[in-house]
Structures are given as C-alpha cells and as structure tokens.
C-alpha cells in the first residue's frame, strides 16, 4: 500500500467496522444471531489487487478482530477475515481477465471490471467468508449440515444486496 491508497483503505476499514458493529450487529441480534449480514469483508475485497497475500491475510485478521472487539466474539470474525484474505487471492486469480491484471486496475471494483464480473467475484468471496464465519461460530463439524451450511446460505442471500448497495453507493476507484 502506498500513500495514494492508504487513506481510502483506512476509511473503508473504520467505516465498515463501525457499520458492521453498530447497524448490522443489531439486525443480527434481532434474529438471535441466526443470520448475519456481514459487510466488513468488503474492506478485504477492496484491498489493492497487487497486495501480497500475507499482508491481505493479516489485514483480514485485523479487520475481523476489530469487529470482534465491538461485538464480543473474540477470534470468530478474525479467523474468517484471515481466511477470506487468503481466499481473495485465489478467487481473483481464477477470475482474472485475459492477460491478467495490468496494474491499471488498483482494486477489484466494478469501476474497472463491470458489475457482472464484480458480483461473481463478490458472490464467491462472501460465500467463503460467511461459511468460515459460521464454521468458527459453531466450532465443530457436527453442525456442518444442520446449521452451518443453511445459515451460510441464508446470510449470503441477505448480505449480497447490501454489498451491492454499498458498492453502488461508494463506487470505489482506489
């Protein structure tokens, strides 16, 4: 990260964590935590494309930990954040356009790649993140079919529109 994109990422970090902890956490509590709208992974997704993977993992861990401290679930979001920080690199690699990323597109934003591409990437990315979030929440493979996967699907369905709205709203260029 350089001085050009440091501050946009910092604002995203702070803004998304606050929105997550104050607004979306309340919504989640209304359902007894059965389904969560997890928006803060957008911070991880919008990290610079060229960012080395270890840094993405660590930043994912940090943003998750920040949310954890505000919602009292120490480690759960941090584990999911680190996991999706690593998954992001694989997903971006899979969805790379012909010739790969040129460096002219600093972030994985619909500004550069179009909505279709963005929603596919975000769809997979959020599915991975939400799955790992619930896996860490239940912490045992015993609940995989009974609770983890159904709640992942439901939360994913609820999360994606919010992701779309936020991305449309801010339309990040860097």
């Amino acid at each position: 990260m350089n001085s050009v994109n440091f501050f946009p990422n910092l604002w995203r970090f702070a803004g998304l964590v606050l929105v997550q902890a104050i607004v979306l956490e309340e919504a989640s509590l209304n359902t007894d935590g059965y389904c969560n709208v997890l928006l803060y992974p957008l911070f991880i997704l919008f990290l610079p494309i060229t960012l080395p993977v270890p840094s993405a993992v660590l930043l994912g861990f940090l943003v998750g930990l920040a949310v954890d401290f505000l919602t009292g679930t120490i480690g759960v979001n941090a584990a999911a954040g680190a996991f999706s920080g690593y998954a992001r690199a694989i997903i971006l690699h899979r969805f790379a356009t012909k010739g790969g990323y040129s460096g002219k597109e600093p972030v994985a934003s619909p500004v550069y790649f179009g909505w279709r591409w963005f929603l596919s990437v975000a769809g997979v990315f959020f599915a991975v993140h939400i799955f790992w979030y619930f896996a860490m929440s239940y912490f045992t493979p015993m609940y995989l079919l009974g609770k983890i996967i159904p709640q992942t699907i439901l939360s994913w369905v609820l999360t994606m529109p919010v992701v779309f709205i936020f991305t449309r709203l801010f339309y990040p260029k860097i």
Partner: protein
Amino acid sequence: MHSILQLFIRHGGLLTLVVVEVFCFYLISTYNDAQGEISATTWMQYSGTVLGWKTDLYDYVGLKDENTRLRIENARLQSQLANSRMIEVPTLDTVRRQVRADTLERKIIRPEYVLISGRVVGNTISGRNNWMIINRGKRDGVQPNTGVITRSGVAGVVRYVSDNFAIAMSVLHPQTKISAAVKGYEYFGSLVWDGDDPQYLTLTDIPYHLPVKPRDTIQISNYSLLFPEGHTVGLVDTAYRVQGSSFLYIRVKPTQTPASVNDVYVVTNRYAPELNDLQQAIKKDE
C-alpha cells in the same frame, strides 16, 4: 536458509494464514464460552489417545528412573521384612511373642535394620581374597563392618568406606564369616569359603547328630550382627560326618551366585555398636 526463504516467498500467504488461524482458534476457544466448551470436549476425546502414546513414551524413557525407584522401594520393603522378624510386642498377659511389623502396637516397634540400596560396580571372584566395590559410601550412610545382601542371598561385608563408595569383602574371602544356621534347627555355625571352588561355601560347627539333607535351607542365624536374621543364604549341597569329628561337613550352594551380584542392600544393624560394646565389657571382665 535460502530454501526456507524461497519457501516463504512461494507459500508465504498460506503460512501466514495457518499461523493466524491457529492463533484465532486459540482466541476463539479462550474467549468464547460455547466454543471453549466444544474445543475442550474435542480435546478430551482426542487427548485420551494422544496422552496414551505420551504415557507409553514417558514410561519407556523413564524405565531407568523407575528401576531406581523400585530399588529404593525394595530396600524399604526388605528392611521392613528384616525388622519384622525381630519385633517383640508385650501382650496383655505379659507374654512376649513375635508379631509382624504391621499388626499390633506400632509404637513399640524397634526397627533394627537400616537398608541402603546400591549397585556393585566392581567385583572379583577369581582371586584368593575377593572384593566388591559398591556405589554407596559415607554420604549415603554406609559404615564399615556392615553386611551386604541381595534379594536372594548374601553378598559380603563392608570393610572400607570412602565418601561415595564402599569396598566389601565378597563371600569369597577367607575372612568373611557368616553366622548361619540350617533352617528348622537351633544350632548355628560359620559359613565360610575354603578358597577352592567359588561355587560353594562351607558351613562349620553343626553337630553331627542333626539330620541335615541336601536341599535344606541355610539362613542367617539369630546371632548375626551383620545380616538380618532368617535371610536365606544358600541350600545344602552335600552334608556328611567327618571321621573323628563331632561336626558335620556341610557344603552349601549360595542362593546368590557371587559372580552375578548386581543390586545389593547394605544392612546396618542399629544396635551392633551397642552389642559390641557389651561384648567388650565381657572381655574386660575376663
């Protein structure tokens, strides 16, 4: 070092992920009650197996310590056994009778023997005067003129003591005289080595009228100040009357082969100095 660096550059993301996730697992199970409970239960299920392996490994590695511990324990038990034979407890009708150490009136038990476990680190059997070196000395409480026994028999008598070692006359030493008796008879004699065959000892001074047979047990007599009374020494090999003598010639096969002495106990009779003093008093009278 270079290859480790290469590995990190190639798989740095994965390595970071693994480290961070492990740390997260720790955080989750430490700071969240529900997940903590789940991980504790899971740990218990798997740790049983793993702990089993661990115990097996520790047992194997600790065999040497275990062996030492057992030797010390044996010394304690042997001394209890040795002492149990000499405990006299007055009963209500003032008749004194012998009881086992762990039965009655513990408070008036007078322990007679102290046993110190040790190992023979040097031993000769081929000479005329045979000696053993024991890895216990003054610092361990070994004193000169104390008996050395093994589980199965008698090994010798301590003569010289340094800080950490003791030198004992083997039973294969002409000066080693063991006060012994044939089990079942009250007569006692001296068990000595005649200097010929290291396989056999000779029991002297047993009157010819005793019907001693081969395979009879020879044990420490109750007059011995060096060894616990009743400790088995050997088995009668041959016994016959020597022409013109009123005593039997008894050849004894020691139950502890002198050549294979290994784990030993140094026996200290706590009353030996007192008894020796009394005997000195008799000599003065004469």
